[in-house]
């Protein structure tokens, strides 16, 4: 996955400012940056939800919408989850599967995998935040995609859930998939990510292996504060 001079402006705000990075398969790439740094906007542009002001995001040389069945190439969890509150989790995934000609049995597989087997027939509006998050992750895995994009997947998960998603991401990367994950939980990133991309105010601050970024600091947290010093919203 490559981002080429990816830029997004909302009126006067530059949300993403000329990001030029490559995200490789076979490892977990953490995406860090203060609130408003442009992480979610970048991910939305990767999925062709937001149109870049300039530059582009390519997956194996093609844009997301150029894929015949995009869910089988890229699985994504976006910030809001975006599920209709009146629809059950299972029906949500069922519609999703139909849209990309994914076999229905895969729906029950990912529901089990995400630990939602018991609540699959409850309306999503009645889900707790962690359950909604699990449903979103189940959706990201539905098409068994080689690329996984997760926007703050750990949000709202209980300790078991946190450990589960950690193992899941490591496992996906070990299978040779591309895992691109944003998070504010630095301690979690320190044990999950192989590589980090750090941005502040839309600009690239670091793009390096975890070990390299942490080197010379007591922890990732220390390294992060030094990197983002001056980029934090005030």
């Amino acid at each position, binding site marked *: 996955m490559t981002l080429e001079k990816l830029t997004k402006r909302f009126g006067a705000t530059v949300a993403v400012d000329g990001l030029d990075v490559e995200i490789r398969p076979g490892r977990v790439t953490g995406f860090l940056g203060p609130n408003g740094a442009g992480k979610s906007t970048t991910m939305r542009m990767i999925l062709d939800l937001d149109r870049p002001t300039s530059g582009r995001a390519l997956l194996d040389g093609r844009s997301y919408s150029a894929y015949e069945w995009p869910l089988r190439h890229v699985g994504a969890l976006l910030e809001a989850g975006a*599920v209709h509150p009146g629809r059950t989790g299972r029906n949500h995934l*069922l519609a999703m599967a139909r*849209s990309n000609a994914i076999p229905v049995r895969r729906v029950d597989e990912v529901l089990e995998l995400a630990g939602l087997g018991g609540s699959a027939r409850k309306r999503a509006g009645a889900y707790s935040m962690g359950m909604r998050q699990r449903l979103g992750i189940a959706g990201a895995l539905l098409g068994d995609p080689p690329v996984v994009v997760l926007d703050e997947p750990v949000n709202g998960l209980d300790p078991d859930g946190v450990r589960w998603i950690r193992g899941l991401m490591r496992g996906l990367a070990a299978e040779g998939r591309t895992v691109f994950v944003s998070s504010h939980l630095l301690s979690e990133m320190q044990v999950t990510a192989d590589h980090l991309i750090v941005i502040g105010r839309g600009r690239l601050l670091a793009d390096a292996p975890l070990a390299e970024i942490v080197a010379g600091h007591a922890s990732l947290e220390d390294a992060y504060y030094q990197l983002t010093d001056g980029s934090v919203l005030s």
Partner: protein
Amino acid sequence: MTRLRAAIGAEWTKLWTTRTVWWALLSALVLMAAGAGQYALYAGNGDLPASVFRDGLVPAGSIAVLALSFAQLAFLALAMLAMTSEFSTGTIRSSLTWVPARGRLLLAKCAVVAAVTFVTGVVAGLLGSLVARPLLDDLGTSAGVLTQSLKIGLYLAVLGILAVGLGAALRGPVLTLVVLLLLIVVVPPLLQVPDIAVLNAVADAMPGVAGNHFLEGDSPLVGLAIVSAWAIAAVLAGRAVLQRRDA
């Protein structure tokens, strides 16, 4: 084609897995039955205009068409919400990651809404006629009921497409409903009241009045062409907005 079929399958599942559709269809049938009953009683009291009579008799299907002025509101709500709920609940982001081609997503939604409003529209037409016929007694006739019901279904299918397209263009449920009501319910009578040729002609070009010409008038094809033109224009506007704006 396979992708359009898959998108239609997803939209079909989405439509039937929230409660909105059931409430809207139930309301449509209740409004149709109640309206048809009321108009049939008017006919019995001699309160209907002469234009409703055919060879001295009132066709039950024409009573269903009169009652449609109420029932179509429920169909409009159904069609409009199928699109605008995507924006109000944020599911448009999910939908567009599943089907990134904006035009295909919109086409799939139109197909599903049109299919549902067509079939239930025919059912509503038959129901209205069925309620009206016994109340009309020897004033009424069942002639042409099936044709009239099929025409009601067709009109509601085109109207459904218009509502989906407009919903995509305007995005919010409230604004979309207001514009639909203005176009179909509010503005035409205001134009027709003064009975000036120019204003009447403008009213004839509005979707609801044109639909009425299609259902009851002398030149049904012109009426159908006008409603269809509205629907196509709304869908093109909706597609343009979906393509231009960030989700």
